[in-house]
């Protein structure tokens, strides 16, 4: 059995390539001038520049937090470039006008902005580095009144919506990285679903960090108006790089009364080589605010990044609101993860479900950190938390940091946790039935993650299974 570990092919990160497109990049370093420059390049209105500057000035007064269970070398914020955009960006009438190099990039990443995607029913808002290029199917969505465009575009076309909701769930003062993001965010997605509308297609966004040392600071805002429903998929890839890249995104979700937002992520950022060198730092703030009778559901499969540090959370503001968090986080080789969720129960009869599956392999360190907070007026609150860890091999680690704060005695909370190890017995049992070692591991791990995978939209579920298989290759011995 042990022969398979070292002998197995080291799957080169298959997305490790760089596009040679002339990028319009500014010099490294961060200052008020850089913030003004970014805003000017995007032709932003004064109110947004003011907001960025407030965030920047606030950031200067903050200290970088070091409480997570992860280790990384000191980040030099002056060494990164804070803007990079391909020169060929103008509003496009058709895909023929897109730089062919860019299109090739999308092809390699498996994204096609063509009719095939349309038939598959997915609207793709493809982001190349910091600026969006084309948005398909706007017309289809427009029929239903759904707005789905780049954040930059929304600033110009729907400023009142941006002004109303930007920072309403994650204020710029929220934390160090949110402040940084608010000051220098590049672009992202904006989605607004009108009252009573069920968005007919699953929305999706792809990212890529290209130019060296460009931190990706994307900003996404999704608003589901009363009674609306939207399902959003986020999947990322990034090329091979030797210097660490910081990805400090902010995602805000607003679900008004009786609305529902489903946000799914399959994250496969470059994790660094097997010695942990060069991977992406994924320090993200994701939060949703749920009003009366509404629901926000986060589903994530995190297999990449050198370090993952994120807590997609739900503020259960409205009565009868529901928050859900389903997560599979994998760490292999020298990856580290400190991830989990926060469910803040404010309204009455609110409910939250947390299902977290952590898989550690190689020398990976995986920490679950979750907070369930029941405020004094949150009568009838219910929470179910299930936090399972699977250890593959003898050198990895799994850690759990649950925070439970209950200030109302009518609350019901359940917390279950388990730790298991993939046994050689399980693998032999599968092999004795004709399955290879790889298939066996894939099967056992999929079984472990089943409750989470079944929350993912179909196409993502398949990608997630494959990713899991690739990430865990050569880990059992």
């Amino acid at each position, binding site marked *: *059995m042990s022969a398979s570990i070292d002998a197995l092919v080291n799957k080169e990160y298959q997305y490790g390539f760089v596009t040679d497109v002339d990028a319009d990049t500014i010099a490294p370093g961060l200052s008020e001038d850089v913030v003004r420059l970014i805003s000017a390049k995007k032709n932003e209105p004064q109110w947004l520049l003011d907001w960025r500057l407030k965030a920047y000035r606030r950031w200067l007064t903050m200290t970088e937090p070091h409480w997570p269970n992860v280790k990384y070398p000191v980040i030099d914020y002056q060494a990164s470039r804070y803007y990079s955009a391909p020169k060929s960006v103008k509003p496009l009438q058709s895909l023929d006008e897109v730089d062919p190099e860019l299109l090739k990039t999308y092809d390699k990443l498996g994204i096609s902005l063509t009719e095939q995607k349309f038939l598959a029913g997915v609207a793709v808002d493809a982001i190349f580095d910091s600026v969006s290029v084309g948005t398909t199917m706007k017309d289809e969505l427009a029929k239903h009144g759904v707005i789905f465009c780049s954040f930059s575009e929304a600033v110009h076309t729907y400023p009142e919506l941006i002004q109303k909701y930007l920072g309403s769930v994650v204020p710029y003062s929220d934390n160090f990285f949110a402040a940084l993001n608010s000051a220098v965010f590049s672009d992202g997605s904006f989605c607004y679903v009108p009252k009573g509308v069920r968005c007919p297609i699953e929305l999706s966004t792809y990212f890529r960090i290209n130019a060296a040392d460009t931190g990706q600071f994307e900003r996404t805002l999704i608003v589901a108006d009363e009674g609306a429903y939207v399902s959003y998929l986020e999947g990322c890839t990034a090329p091979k790089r030797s210097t660490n890249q910081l990805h400090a995104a902010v995602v805000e979700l607003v679900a008004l009364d009786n609305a529902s937002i489903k946000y799914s992520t399959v994250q496969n950022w470059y994790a660094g080589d097997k010695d942990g060198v060069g991977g992406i730092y994924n320090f993200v703030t994701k939060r949703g605010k749920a009003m009366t009778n509404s629901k926000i559901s986060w589903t994530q499969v995190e297999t990449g990044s050198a370090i993952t540090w994120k807590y997609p959370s739900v503020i259960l503001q409205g009565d009868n609101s529901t928050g859900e968090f389903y997560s599979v986080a994998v760490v292999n080789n020298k990856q580290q993860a400190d991830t989990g969720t926060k469910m803040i129960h404010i309204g009455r009869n609110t409910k939250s479900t947390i299902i977290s599956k952590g898989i550690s392999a190689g020398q990976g360190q995986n920490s679950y950190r979750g907070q369930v907070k029941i405020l004094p007026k949150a009568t009838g609150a219910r929470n179910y938390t299930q936090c399972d860890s699977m250890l593959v091999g003898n050198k990895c680690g799994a850690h759990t940091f649950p925070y439970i704060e209950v200030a109302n005695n009518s609350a019901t909370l359940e917390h279950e946790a388990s730790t298991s190890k993939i*046994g*050689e*017995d*399980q693998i*032999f*049992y*599968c*092999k*004795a*039935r*004709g*399955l*290879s*070692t790889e*298939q066996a591991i894939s*099967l*056992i791990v*999929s*079984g*472990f*993650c*089943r*409750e989470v995978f079944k929350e993912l939209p179909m196409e993502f579920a398949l990608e997630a299974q494959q990713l899991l298989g690739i990430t865990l290759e050569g880990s059992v011995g």
Partner: protein
Amino acid sequence: MLTIDKLHANVGDKEILKGISLTVNAGEIHAIMGPNGSGKSTLAQVIAGHPGYDVTSGSVTFAGKDLLALPAEERAQHGVFLAFQYPVEIPGVTNAYFLRSAYNEVRRANGLDEVDPMEFLDLMEEKLKLVDMDPAMLQRSVNAGFSGGEKKRNEILQMAVLAPKLAILDETDSGLDIDALRIVAEGVNALKRPDNATIVVTHYQRLLNYIVPDFVHVLAGGKIVKSGGKDLALELEAKGYDWVLETA
């Protein structure tokens, strides 16, 4: 079909099999009996390819192939089936999915087309009846929360689905009550064909009342010390293993 020639095998530094030789032909049922620690389960697992054992010398030929040169999954694909003494649990993976994956893998290895879930369910219907199992059990996780009897019947169900050329039943009767024993035995008997063979590893003669062997071998101290027909099992029952060891 199966020829074992002077097989020696270790667990770590300890030699367990000390020169086993055995021939099993198509259409035959062989019973392997013997006291605890004699190496019965070891033999079963070495044939199936368990990684915890090292073969130090000897050979195993199956359908003309050098079985020891193949990894466990290829042995299964070629038609060797081991019914585990302690079936393993795989939480989160349904019996249906596991079985279909195994079935398709074996088919693929033999150049046949895979079957889709619907075709597979049709196939399962009749197999389930064979072991008197409720179809609902297909949606439960593999062996998770199964009683001892259910686990053993699940092994026979898998055997029915995979239709092996050589089935090795490793103490399939341990932990079974009378009714479960009968069901398991009936299942095994129903699967018997002139072109397949079965090796039944057991302590007790009881199972052999239902699965009647053509040959009985007594394993003691890592070697086969006596072989005979089905009457040998009855003699053992009456006289105990000490008798065999004395007369061996």
